[in-house]
């Protein structure tokens, strides 16, 4: 079959484009070391008892070390606990690990304008670690339709300088 040289060029460029898309994503996950939210291996929770048993019965911030805190957060109709009724306060430039689950329906967790984005699924624990670079206020929204008041489901993360972080509100281990 005879193919015109311009057509050969266009076929070649189309294949190159696909290779470039895949290459850019692979570059992100290897060289730039980007991560996506994970599910704790083998760890599931019972949505019926998650509010009364285990770490999610007392959602909040726990201290792992001086440079590492973890947040157990519930996304439920139609609030983030902690985060919605009063802001979730976290220290800046410190490792923060989020563990999130839902006792009712599927929710979303997104900090708009950032790379923090996860789906929160009943029965599963979504986990990721981040570091807030500066002390300022970040919003949280639910990006997964979860019911009649989904549009009101929002929260706030108040990031303060590490020296001003009040540890009296931590949940004891």
């Amino acid at each position, binding site marked *: 079959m005879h193919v015109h040289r311009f057509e050969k060029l266009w076929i070649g460029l189309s294949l190159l*484009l696909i290779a470039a898309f895949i290459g850019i994503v692979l570059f992100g996950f290897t060289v730039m070391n980007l991560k996506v939210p994970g599910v704790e291996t083998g760890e599931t929770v019972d949505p019926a008892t998650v509010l009364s048993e285990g770490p999610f019965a007392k959602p909040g911030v726990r201290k792992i070390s001086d440079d590492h805190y973890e947040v157990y957060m519930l996304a439920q109709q139609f609030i983030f606990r902690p985060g919605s009724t009063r802001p979730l306060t976290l220290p800046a430039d410190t490792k923060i690990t989020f563990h999130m689950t839902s006792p009712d329906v599927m929710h979303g967790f997104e900090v708009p304008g*950032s790379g923090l984005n996860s789906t929160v699924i009943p029965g599963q624990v979504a986990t*990721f670690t981040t*570091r807030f670079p500066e002390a300022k206020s970040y919003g949280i929204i639910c990006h997964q339709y979860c019911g009649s008041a989904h549009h009101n489901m929002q929260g706030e993360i108040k990031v303060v300088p590490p020296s001003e972080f009040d540890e009296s509100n931590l949940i004891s281990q």
Partner: protein
Amino acid sequence: MPTDESDASTDGAAAGDDSGKARDISLDEFQPYGTLAVTGAYFILLLVLYALLYFVEFATHAPHIIE
């Protein structure tokens, strides 16, 4: 736009007389450089915008997931 005169001359032309008739060329003689330029510009735009979206809007927007 063809005029009435050229239509008339084409209609009246004998087979083999090329005056006023579009020229037959082989596939390899057809060189659409204009189309190549437009497609090439679109191709480069697509690559640049994809990289911009990925690196500026997604990959470097702190805070992001580190573990």
